[in-house]
């Protein structure tokens, strides 16, 4: 960059130093911007995954039934699997391993959880649908995963899930798996 000699009577050398400092500080804004970007990616990632169903994420709130039409021309199989993560002293499994249904038809399935410890324990279930593209068509009306669940020592509880599969489900998907991972929700 050309240095103008007549500014403020400062020597060209001093002016150049000032210009260097100025540009240096300007570049720090890029650094600040990318730090902000890396932090912003955390909520952005979550929003993107929930909106598009990438990564198998499903909504954590109840869906509203907008269309009660049942597409009786297709069958879809939904399989259920369950995991209990380390740190949670529960047994947890679905009462039925899979269900065959028409898109649009509302179904209820039950999961059974048992607290095998001698303490009151709280857990939180995190759902995931595979294949990921199907997850936004999997609509939960009522789910035990919307809130924290608490079990008394030795208590067994049946946990219901009411859901339907949207009739918009892409035609190449005929099978999907809903997986629940139960995490300990006690404050450590």
């Amino acid at each position, binding site marked *: *960059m*050309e240095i103008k000699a007549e500014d403020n009577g400062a020597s060209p050398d001093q002016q*150049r130093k000032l*210009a*260097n*400092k100025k*540009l*240096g500080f300007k*570049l*720090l804004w*890029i*650094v*600040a911007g*990318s*730090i902000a*970007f*890396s*932090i912003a*990616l*955390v909520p952005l*990632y*979550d929003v993107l*995954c929930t909106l*598009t169903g*990438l*990564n*198998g994420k499903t909504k954590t709130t109840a869906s509203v039934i907008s269309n009660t039409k049942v597409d009786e021309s297709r069958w879809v199989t939904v399989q259920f699997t369950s995991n209990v*993560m380390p*740190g949670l002293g529960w047994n947890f499994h679905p009462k039925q391993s899979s269900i065959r249904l028409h898109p649009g038809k509302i179904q209820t399935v039950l999961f059974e959880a048992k607290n095998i410890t001698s303490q009151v324990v709280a857990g939180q279930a*995190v759902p995931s649908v595979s*294949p*990921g*593209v199907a997850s936004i068509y999997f609509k939960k009306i009522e789910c035990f995963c919307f809130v924290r669940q608490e079990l008394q020592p030795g208590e067994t509880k049946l946990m219901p899930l009411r859901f339907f599969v949207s009739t918009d489900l892409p035609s190449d998907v005929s099978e999907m798996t809903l997986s629940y*991972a139960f*995490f*300990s929700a006690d404050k*450590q």
Partner: protein
Amino acid sequence: MSTTTVAHHDEHADHPTGIMRWLTTTNHKDIGTMYLTFSLIMFLVGGSMILGIRAELFQPGLQLMNPDFFNQLIGVHALIMIFAALMPAATGFANWMIPLQIGAPDMALPRLNNWGFWLLPPSAILLTLPFILALFGIGDGALATGWTFYPPLSIQGGFGVDFAIFAVHLLGISSVLGSINIIVTLYNMRAPGMTLMKMPLFAWGWLITAFLLIATIPVLAGAVTMLLTDRHFGTHFFDAAGGGDPVMFQHLFWFFGHPEVYILLLPVWGFIPQILQTFSRKPVYGYKAQVYSFWAIGALAVVVWAHHFFTAGLPVPALLYFMYSTMAISLPLAVLFFCWIKTMWKGSMSFETPMLFTVGWIILFGIGGLTGLVLADVAADAQYHNSYFVVAHFHYTLFAGGIMGIMAGVYYWLPKMTGHMYNEKLGKTHFWLTAISFNMTFIPQFFLGLAGMPRRIPDYALQFAEFNMISSISAFVLGLSQLLFVYIIITCVRGGKKATDQVWEGAEGLEWTLSSPPPYHSFAEQPVIK
């Protein structure tokens, strides 16, 4: 510091002597020398670590070390080679050569420059200290996650992970400072008449590298900081139990990690054409095309990151996008290859050591690039992912494409920097030893990967034994050959045939108009470019 400031305006090289000269220096040549020396030392440290690995892999079964120590060596080897050997070498050249090439008296922000360098030794200590502490029974050694820090493993690891996180913070600050300095130098300090499109390609390569660095290093710093708070302060960024997602770390890490590859390579792509020009005695072919290709690669570098984890369960549209965008990078890269070859075409070539390294570099880096295309294919990657094929591929790009390129630069500029010619015969011997043993080390690893041998595992099935044995023996030859490199450099610094100002018959550019070695303060009066 006042003495150095005075010295700045003084014609005489009057600076503190002894250790204080190096601690307080703001001179770009001194700082460049420190960067290069540091890089060479860490290259040997990182190299000896991997020789430990190759010794263990010499035979199937566990002979020398437990798997945990094996994993620690692998992770720290990578971090040291990338952050403490390759990057400082490129920054060292930038410090030495950019002011000389653009006719500037020094770097724009000399004190920042000094600070940028002196952050490096503490971070190298942070990386290696856990090994030493473990010898005294403190802690369980360095990070054992590989250089990628993937959670949940990195959340469970010992304090070696914390040491590495803080080392990455320091290294990150160092390279951000260095990059700001280089950008300001290139924008504000060019000699009158030197427009951006007249800058030497090395300066161009570094300008784009520096922008990539300041845009992506903070993302890595952010990601490892989240890891730190996950480990110690009860956050759940990457912990699924608290609603976090471990795959998000992979996105954050590789958003930095892929541009990092080009950060390591762009400075080399910058000076390779200059070497070709010198020893082909022909002007650089396609200067503009090369500059635009640099920009294109720099821009594409930040939008292709997910090809590092195709197998993590990405949806098909994302896989397709990342596959096509990754493959698109090969187009500007092909332009570069074409320009390099065309620069040599019908030139009156001679094969001094820098040229040998450069021509070898073009071939080997070409293999690295082409095997990368194989990995960029989603369908093929499912088989090659995390196999030795990947290891061989990125060593062709980073050892051949990075370190052998840097070596070409060392031989090219060493006479200018020291004022002495190096021993040409030994230099050529070093090239042939390096090139042959490098190929003998990594070609077997392509076969091992195709046959299904996973990386980062200390033991392997019997059918992999022969190839591993060849690879291990060659790795030791490769490692020991580098002692010859150190010997050549030391003898060249201490004496030898006097180098002329131009050094090479075909050399062109401002740095070759100065004496060899250049005066402590060069270009006090800026040259005018017509």
